[in-house]
């Protein structure tokens, strides 16, 4: 089991560019999540999904978009990148009433 994988590990974007952060899990978990973590801070929920075809906003969804066409994949799209989106992005998955399993993260810098 690879668990939760994320690509890329690092990325530098220019202001106004767009990109997709990839997230894949092989544990057949229904629930998947995207968080951002700013330096020295806790995790903020961006979007989450309770199953294929179902997504919902978290605390900080502005500037992001998601889709969930399969159980395994949950990509996060950044449109028109801004310096405020510089952060570390974590994807996670879990079974109902289980713990969340996190991917290794993507460090994104917007210049």
């Amino acid at each position, binding site marked *: 089991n690879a668990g939760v994988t994320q690509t890329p590990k690092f990325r530098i974007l220019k202001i106004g560019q767009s990109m997709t952060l990839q997230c894949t899990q092989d544990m057949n978990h229904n629930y998947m*999540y995207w968080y951002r973590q700013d330096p020295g*801070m*806790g*995790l903020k929920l961006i979007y989450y999904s309770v199953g294929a075809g179902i997504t919902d906003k*978290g605390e900080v969804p502005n500037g992001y978009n998601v889709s969930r066409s399969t159980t395994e994949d949950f990509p996060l799209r950044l449109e028109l990148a801004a310096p405020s989106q510089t952060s570390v992005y*974590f994807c996670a998955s879990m079974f109902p009433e289980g713990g969340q399993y996190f991917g290794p*993260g993507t460090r994104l810098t917007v210049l």
Partner: protein
Amino acid sequence: QQPVQSPQAVILREGEDAVINCSSSKALYSVHWYRQKHGEAPVFLMILLKGGEQKGHDKISASFNEKKQQSSLYLTASQLSYSGTYFCGTEGGGAQKLVFGQGTRLTINP
């Protein structure tokens, strides 16, 4: 509403005990605890469900008082490997989404 963790930071010598508290202003369905080492992803430690549970996991245990909307994480006879930032994540009502506290940085010195 973000849960409040206390203390914000604690420094111990190896072998000492620590308690980290997590308090919410909302009714809770479950509380999760995670540890994150510098530059790494958070790692799941345990989940406590509604019902006033107490759980143990080697020398790390936790309690959940749903009436007080509080949870505490207990680390006994701390080891160097326990160093890191501990986060609680609270879930309000079966939505299966968490709100995380700001974290407690634990440093264990030899």
